[in-house]
């Protein structure tokens, strides 16, 4: 109880809410880093995933690259990049190393979800579009991408949550964000500060997840807002493996 009240004191103390090293400033830099990485990853991931899914080529490469990327620990990558002389001598070395790492973390979910979404468009719909005289680019932009939108947004949500959470590590390589409290607390053996930092990061991640889920629902055209059971599980952390696992369920339902 005493510990909790110390944490509450830390979080509500006025000193921690004003100034360059206070909660608002650190939160802003965490969100800035995350936004850079997620926006870049969505641009790259959606373009690459749409092209691959549209052409139907490279499924083997995409799925394997995404699985391999999952195995790369962000923690190792960010540190490895941060101490490279080419990056370490930059003024914003922490931001650069962190952005590159977060970008690498965010691309796979966006890419695989876009790929699966575009690839998964009903062949009959595709044939109908072509029979109506659509050009391949029209097919992609007016049919395939809109139909893939829910899955693409789910990928962006996963990416955003993972990035906001992992951006904490940037503080370890000299980019002050909410992780600063955690690592400072660990270094000076101040469990209250560490715990307060962890609490803030967890809260931010949960808020971002909720915002991305709500935003995703708002961006999805009304007719496509599925309420099916399978679709609900596609939300957070959706990826090729689970999507593939979910297919039989919808197939079985269709058969009924």
């Amino acid at each position, binding site marked *: 109880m005493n510990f909790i009240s110390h944490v509450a004191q830390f979080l509500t103390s006025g000193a921690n809410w004003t100034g360059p090293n206070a909660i608002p400033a650190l939160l802003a830099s965490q969100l800035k880093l995350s936004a850079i990485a997620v926006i870049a990853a969505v641009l790259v991931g959606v373009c690459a995933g749409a092209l691959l899914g549209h052409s139907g080529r490279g499924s083997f490469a995409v799925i394997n690259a995404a699985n391999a990327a999952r195995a790369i620990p962000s923690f190792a990558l960010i540190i490895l990049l941060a101490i490279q002389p080419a990056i370490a001598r930059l003024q914003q070395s922490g931001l650069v190393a962190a952005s590159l790492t977060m970008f690498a973390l965010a691309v796979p979910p966006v890419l695989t979800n876009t790929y699966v979404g575009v690839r998964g468009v009903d062949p009959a719909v595709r044939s109908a579009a072509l029979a109506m005289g659509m050009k391949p680019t029209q097919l992609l932009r007016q049919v395939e991408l809109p139909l893939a939108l829910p899955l693409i947004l789910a990928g962006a949500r996963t990416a955003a949550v993972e990035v906001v959470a992992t951006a904490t590590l940037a503080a370890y390589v000299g980019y002050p964000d909410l992780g600063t409290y955690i690592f400072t607390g660990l270094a000076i053996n101040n469990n209250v500060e560490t715990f307060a930092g962890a609490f803030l990061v967890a809260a931010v991640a949960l808020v971002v997840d909720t915002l991305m889920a709500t935003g995703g629902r708002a961006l999805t055209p009304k007719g496509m807002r599925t309420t099916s059971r399978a679709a609900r*599980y596609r939300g957070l952390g959706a990826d090729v493996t689970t999507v593939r696992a979910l297919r039989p369920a919808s197939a079985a339902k269709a058969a009924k």
Partner: protein
Amino acid sequence: MALIGSAGLFGTWISSNEGMILSLLWQHVQLTAIAVAVGAAISLPLGVVAWRVHGLRGPLVGVTGALYVVPSVALLLLVAPITGFFSITTAEVALVSYTLLILLRNTIAGLDSVPAQVHDAARGMGYSPARELVKVQLPLAMPSIFAGLRVATVTVVGLVNVTAFIGQGGLGQLIIQGFQGDFTTEIAVGLVLSVLLAGVADALLVGVERLSLPWLRAQSGARA
């Protein structure tokens, strides 16, 4: 080249620190195995319950989803005051909590994917609900459960590194030491071994899946 340092230095450092590297690798394997085993022991029964009792599905997926969203570093330190800073329990609580959503969701999805006709046939043949679950539904859900185990294992292998902040971490120790000593080779060794370990674990799970679910091979053979 600059990234990994010269190959000679790489080899020399590895051979002169072989004992330390191997023991950290072994710790990494243990931390991962415990987390995935405990995660599976919790999520499989929970998955079956959530699948059967529709009212529990939302809450269970919601709670495990929230645990999944909480950042790994943060979760480690949030449980630390209860389970002790620098304890293996703290590391495992955090690691296990990440496997729950993945395993739970795939268990439910796998059970959901059992065709209604199969269910009708089993009931028609006089299977009791419990026997049907064990003999028919769970085996048919296994591909999805294995997919979840693979994702969970690969994720945990990566996350174990982060537990180095509380004195655990296996190969993560190499990464932290390398950072403190500004020594790229050590970080690269940690990174590469961690990725290799994830690959080997994934391949092992694929092997176990193939051996334990022989009908999958027969199915894909028939399709081809």
